[in-house]
């Protein structure tokens, strides 16, 4: 029996996700089955050449074979392989990270199903289906976001903003198809550009649509938030590139560079200022991510292949830094019964040293400071930006420094020995203070720390991958 590659890549994770929904009671089975399925897909896509065939007990999978659904072609192309690998490997890693924090959670089946939808989005030819599948996957991730308590405001905002972006994405495709028929009607192209810009500004949490980022990161369960900021945002990023690949004249407009550079810088400055002023660690994660998103758009605004490679490198670095922050934040929240403000976390480093270290190192990496992969990517970005506009590079660097300031302030709070306070001023009592950190979580933290440091010392491994990815997008010189 021969199966088309897209059916296998889409069908297997969806089928396993359905099984996992039944097996939710057994967390360990859920975690490993979800992680193995996602990692297995990633490995298959890495080891099997596109034209290759994989045979297992009479079942043959032809990766490049197209699947036709109601006249629409679904096919894995060479440029999609990198995207699919990113989605599946990141999802697999996050399932493992969430293991000890989300018992009996929906996150494992839902995360796997969302990964399948996201990967399916890049195998369909028309971008309108890509947009719809991305939105469907994004809506799915709302379900496990508030399982571990907290207000549901973050999930609601994320849902609203995601759906608000959908009309723009769908109408853009209509306008661009019309422009192909009437190439002299510049108005169509201008409207499409504006709509596309607004839609992606919403999806990336650009100013003034940034409220969902902070709401999600302060209310949501940290492992799910990390999934949302890495897999979901990564998918949105590749969706943007898919639009540029399908409609190359979009990126050839005169305003392209200015639009993305300005948007990126505004996001970086706003995120940096807000991150420096934060009193809650969850929100700090959200605003640091906003700065990182801005950096990616700034890299795109350079209008060069090198910029695209740097943006890809930033995306590759994010799961490591955010993963560390997640482990740290979740550990610190468990210590205080769900609170993550400075008042409650004073001196937490003495009770949860590994969680504190994970949060701080992850934060430093996300801010783009040494020693981390993020530093290599950001440094490259400052250099490439300075070549055309030195002031922009300084503004970007200043924004990163502001995030770093937020991390340093948090570090001071976490490392302050708590002083005895009157009962009226004491922070709310923790539901169950943990005196000893989970050993398995400590092992995960150490492993992630080592990988982050190793990639910081030897960024070439990741940068080669990023350059390889950028070469598939040929709309830039």
């Amino acid at each position: 029996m021969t199966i088309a590659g897209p059916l296998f890549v889409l069908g297997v994770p969806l089928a396993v996700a359905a099984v996992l929904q039944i097996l939710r009671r057994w967390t360990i089975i859920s975690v490993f089955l979800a992680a193995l399925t996602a990692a297995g897909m990633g490995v298959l896509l890495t080891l099997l050449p596109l034209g290759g065939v994989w045979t297992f007990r009479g079942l043959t999978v032809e990766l490049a074979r197209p699947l036709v659904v109601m006249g629409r072609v679904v096919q894995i192309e060479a440029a999609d392989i990198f995207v699919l690998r990113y989605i599946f490997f990141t999802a697999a890693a996050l399932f493992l990270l969430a293991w000890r924090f989300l018992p009996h959670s929906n996150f494992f089946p839902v995360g796997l199903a969302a990964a399948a939808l996201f990967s399916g989005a890049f195998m369909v030819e028309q971008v309108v289906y890509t947009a719809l599948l991305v939105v469907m996957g994004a809506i799915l991730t709302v379900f496990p976001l508030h399982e571990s308590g907290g207000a549901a405001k973050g999930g609601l905002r994320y849902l609203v903003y995601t759906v608000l972006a959908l009309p723009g994405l769908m109408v853009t495709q209509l306008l661009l198809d019309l422009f192909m028929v009437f190439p002299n009607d510049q108005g169509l192209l201008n409207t499409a550009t504006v709509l596309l810009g607004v839609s992606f500004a919403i999806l990336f949490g650009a100013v003034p649509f940034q409220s969902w980022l902070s709401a999600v990161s302060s209310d949501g369960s940290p492992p799910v938030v990390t999934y949302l900021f890495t897999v979901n945002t990564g998918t949105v990023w590749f969706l943007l590139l898919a639009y540029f690949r399908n409609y190359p004249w979009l990126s050839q407009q005169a305003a392209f560079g200015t639009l993305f550079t300005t948007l990126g810088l505004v996001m970086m400055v706003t995120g940096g200022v807000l991150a420096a002023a934060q009193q809650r660690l969850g929100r700090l994660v959200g605003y640091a991510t906003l700065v990182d998103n801005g950096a990616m758009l700034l890299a795109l605004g350079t209008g060069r292949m090198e910029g695209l490679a740097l943006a890809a490198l930033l995306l590759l670095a994010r799961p490591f830094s955010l993963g560390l922050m997640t482990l740290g934040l979740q550990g610190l929240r468990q210590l205080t019964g769900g609170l993550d403000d400075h008042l409650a976390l004073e001196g937490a480093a003495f009770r949860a040293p590994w969680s504190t270290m994970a949060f701080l190192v992850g934060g430093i990496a996300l801010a783009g400071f040494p020693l981390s992969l993020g530093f290599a990517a950001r440094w490259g970005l400052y250099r490439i930006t300075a070549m055309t506009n030195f002031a922009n590079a300084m503004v970007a660097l200043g924004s990163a420094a502001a995030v770093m300031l937020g991390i340093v302030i948090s570090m001071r709070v976490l490392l302050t020995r708590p002083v005895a306070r009157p009962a009226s001023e004491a922070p709310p009592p923790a539901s169950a203070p943990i005196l000893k950190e989970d050993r398995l979580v400590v092992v995960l933290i150490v492993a992630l720390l080592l990988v982050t440091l190793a990639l910081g010392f030897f960024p070439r491994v990741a940068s080669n991958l990023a350059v390889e990815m950028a070469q598939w997008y040929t709309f830039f010189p």
Partner: protein
Amino acid sequence: MTPFAVWLDRISGVTTTTAVWGLFLSGAVIYFIVEWRLRVLALFAQYLFIGVLFTRVFVDRPEMSLLKVLVGWLVCGALFLSVRIRQTAGERPHFHWAADLPFRILSLVMMTVVAYLASQRYTLPFVPQDLALGCILLAVFALLFIGAEEDAGVVGVGVLNLLAALDLFYSAQDPGLVVTGMLIMVNLLVGLAISYLTVAEVRT
């Protein structure tokens, strides 16, 4: 004629203008009255009127309009269940007007005028003018619900209205089965997510 065909025939007999008025009234009920049973009932009616508008888009395939209505009613059912769970958790149902009623009346009047003028002044491609008014009115309600409310249920209704407006507009351009099916999936997912968030709010 089968009962199904008779029912469809009657539905398509309602004029677009009547359906738009129906949309407006049901939307106004959701916006002005803070009582969940009435709100769900109004949403139920709103989906019926949306179905009437769809009969203008799917002229040759009325069953597609029926499908849209059924999906909307399914979402209403899910929302109703969530609200019931929320009510048993302590919130007692009672009829009262929204606290900021004068503001809501003013904003609805202003936005309706804007919607009417927009439908007169700008032509949406492939969308007849009366249908365009319905489309814009749904988008206006979406903005009002999302902007004026904090409650997950009402904000969710706003999101569903936005999707309905997009669905009407896009189906007029591309009435293909794949897009229609995917938009139905998005509607169902949004409905489920809203129902879940409505309950999650109470649990916390």
